[in-house]
């Protein structure tokens, strides 16, 4: 160790050593002129593994999924210019879902900046609106401290992506290298402990509730607070719902869980949300896909407690009564202690009446679908996947109807198992997400539920899967449509299916085989289970399997809250 310290090092060596010091396992990247010195240092080291993707967007998605599934900071490395612009979609995707990643980008040499040099883009300018923070390192002396800051900023408070832009000359300039254990930043100190007075008020309010509801979001997963959330929920006996990003934050198979809420949430979750008198929001941001029309939501009187590490998430779209700024794990731990000391107990009679009402809503069985269809129903494939993987797989998805069916029918009992793009809704994330997860957990079952349109947005990564023997299982719900677009066109555009039909699809079986993988095409419902079992069998454990399920083209996602409508104004399957 001592040997490392106070030695002259080039900027490129410093980047690589900083990553090693951070305990980085994988760097997902793609080389180019501006980062060649860094790649040369990567070549000489064995502390971390570099994963060569086939498109920079996929590098960032894979790093993002590594972070989502492990809770650690993901790392990507791309070259200047087109390398950066290709990475932007990945960065914005991570930003919208508050995912901690560090993206190191090459830049033209400092004397060339601003001269429209070859492969120059204003990386700091382009990425500014979609990063938590970014840096342009102009002096090699600042490099190590900047790397440290990048990791701290990405991982603490409300997590998010950080870009470190390193000009090529900085990578060959030298300086004494010492990796700081930490770096003080006077301008950055996220609040982590909740305000004790506010927490007392919150506990009081919860104990007074007649129709309580817990609404838990991605913050619970990001803050590793599912244990505390479960303890609180069980102690109180309250109903709970998860956002799309919060799935797995509370076990889906538990009776107290009413399922996902929102645009495609369950009837019982949305009704209970709308009619609650005390709402506890935990690490959730009252997204427009979650509460529907805010004016309609505000029609019913309710008091709202909101726990969030980011003050700007609080009272942004919905006014709250008790804001609690702090890390969700700390706050829930403190609230649990207060709750256990409290003399008052929850109002059992009121709660019983509330649960009776909820069970009535639940008995609508809003997720039922036709199980006797001669055509494969997409919901059925997801249900079978859940059975075959014993509910224990990591599931990534792309964006569209298949994403919603995955969310509704795969019951996530553990956090960090459901990996998807909620905030940006980026088609093309599914396969690179699955790669990032599988590399982090080589022995786990990893499924990518996708659509025939989404999968084509990063299909080139089948090659990366081959190179690194990444045995993910792709479950394509192939409806020959951009189904989510088709659904909107059916409902709101008089069934005029403008450009939503996917023509000239490749033969996915042959395509998979061309990349050296196993391909399967499944046309009949009776073959679904066998195919899944085979794909997840020990015989194919080491192989990447591409399953092409020919599903019902006309199936729609229900329930659905139309844009602008209230949360309780759902369209249900039977109503059509």
């Amino acid at each position, binding site marked *: 160790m001592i040997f490392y310290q106070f030695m002259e090092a080039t900027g490129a060596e410093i980047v690589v050593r900083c990553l090693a010091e951070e305990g980085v396992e994988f760097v997902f990247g793609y080389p180019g002129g501006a980062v060649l010195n860094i790649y040369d240092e990567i070549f000489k080291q064995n502390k971390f593994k570099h994963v060569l993707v086939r498109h920079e967007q996929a590098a960032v998605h894979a790093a993002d999924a590594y972070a989502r599934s492990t809770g650690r900071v993901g790392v990507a490395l791309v070259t200047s210019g087109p390398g950066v612009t290709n990475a932007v979609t990945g960065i914005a995707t991570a930003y919208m879902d508050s995912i901690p990643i560090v993206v190191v980008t090459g830049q033209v040499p400092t004397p060339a900046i601003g001269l429209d040099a070859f492969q120059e883009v204003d990386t700091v300018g382009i990425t*500014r609106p979609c990063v938590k*923070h970014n840096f342009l390192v102009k002096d090699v002396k600042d490099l190590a401290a900047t790397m440290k800051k990048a990791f701290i900023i990405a991982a603490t408070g409300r997590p998010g992506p950080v870009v470190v832009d390193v000009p090529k000359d900085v990578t060959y300039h030298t300086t004494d290298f010492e990796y700081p254990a930490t770096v003080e930043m006077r*301008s950055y100190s996220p609040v982590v402990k909740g305000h004790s007075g506010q927490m007392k008020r919150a506990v009081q309010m919860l104990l007074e509730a007649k129709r309580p509801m817990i609404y838990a979001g991605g913050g619970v997963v990001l803050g590793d607070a599912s244990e505390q959330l479960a303890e609180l929920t069980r102690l109180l006996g309250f109903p709970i719902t998860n956002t799309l990003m919060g799935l797995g934050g509370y076990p889906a198979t538990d009776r107290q869980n009413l399922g996902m809420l929102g645009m495609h949430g369950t009837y019982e979750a949305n009704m209970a949300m709308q009619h609650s008198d005390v709402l506890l929001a935990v690490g959730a941001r009252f997204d427009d896909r979650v509460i529907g029309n805010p004016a309609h939501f505000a029609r019913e009187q309710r008091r709202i407690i909101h726990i969030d590490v980011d*003050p700007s998430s609080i*009272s*942004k779209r919905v006014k709250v009564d008790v804001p609690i700024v702090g890390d969700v794990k700390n706050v829930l731990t403190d609230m649990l202690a207060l709750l256990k000391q409290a003399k008052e107990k929850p109002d059992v009679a009121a709660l019983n009446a509330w649960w009776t009402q909820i069970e009535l809503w639940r008995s609508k069985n809003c997720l039922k679908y036709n199980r006797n269809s001669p055509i494969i129903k997409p919901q059925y494939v997801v249900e079978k996947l859940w059975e075959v993987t014993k509910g224990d797989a990591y599931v990534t998805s792309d964006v569209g109807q298949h994403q919603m069916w995955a969310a509704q029918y795969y019951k996530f009992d553990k956090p960090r198992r459901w990996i998807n793009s909620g905030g940006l809704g980026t088609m093309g994330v599914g396969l690179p997400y699955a790669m990032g997860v599988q590399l982090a957990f080589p022995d786990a079952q990893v499924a990518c539920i996708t659509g025939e349109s989404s999968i084509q947005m990063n299909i080139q990564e089948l090659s990366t899967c081959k190179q690194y023997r990444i045995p993910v299982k792709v479950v394509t719900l192939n409806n020959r449509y951009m189904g989510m677009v088709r659904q909107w066109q059916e409902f709101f555009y008089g069934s005029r299916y403008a450009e939503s039909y996917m023509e000239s699809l490749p033969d996915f079986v042959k395509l998979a085989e061309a990349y050296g993988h196993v391909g399967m095409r499944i046309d009949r419902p009776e073959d679904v289970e066998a195919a899944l079992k085979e794909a997840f069998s020990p015989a194919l454990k080491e192989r990447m399997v591409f399953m092409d399920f020919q599903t019902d083209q006309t199936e729609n996602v229900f329930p659905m809250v139309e844009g602008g409508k209230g949360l309780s104004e759902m369209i249900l399957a039977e109503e059509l």
Partner: protein
Amino acid sequence: MSRRHIISLLMENEAGALSRVAGLFSARAYNIESLTVAPTEDATLSRMTIVTVGSEDIIEQITKQLNKLVDVIKVMDLTEGSHIERELMLVKLRAVGADREEIKRTADIFRGNIIDVTESTYTIELTGAGSKLDAFLEAIDSASIIETVRTGASGIGRGERSLKV
């Protein structure tokens, strides 16, 4: 109800600091009437004064979003307490014949200084709250105005109220 607010902030004096703030306002469609920025007595710090208009909810979001910028150290809504606001304006006026005396008198009333004189023009320097500068321009025959340049407001709290690291 929308109201005018003067927000002061201290941030790290680093390249791109201004664009982070300006970018935030445009990306989130917040109003910006004026924005001034310069280093403080401590050269590692920049002080910014932003004049904006918005409802209470919007102003709350603006201060939260500003605080969230990693480089921002402190944010204060000056309009929440007693404060002093000053702006500097330079006005170049066509000043010939009888107008010369008239303009000089008006400038005196507003405690303006004539800082450049030619045969046909006066350039006047005026300091005060934005409303005073507006009033001066109202008092002058608009046809005689050749050019005006305003710095935008700077503000500071009264008495012990201060924005420090």
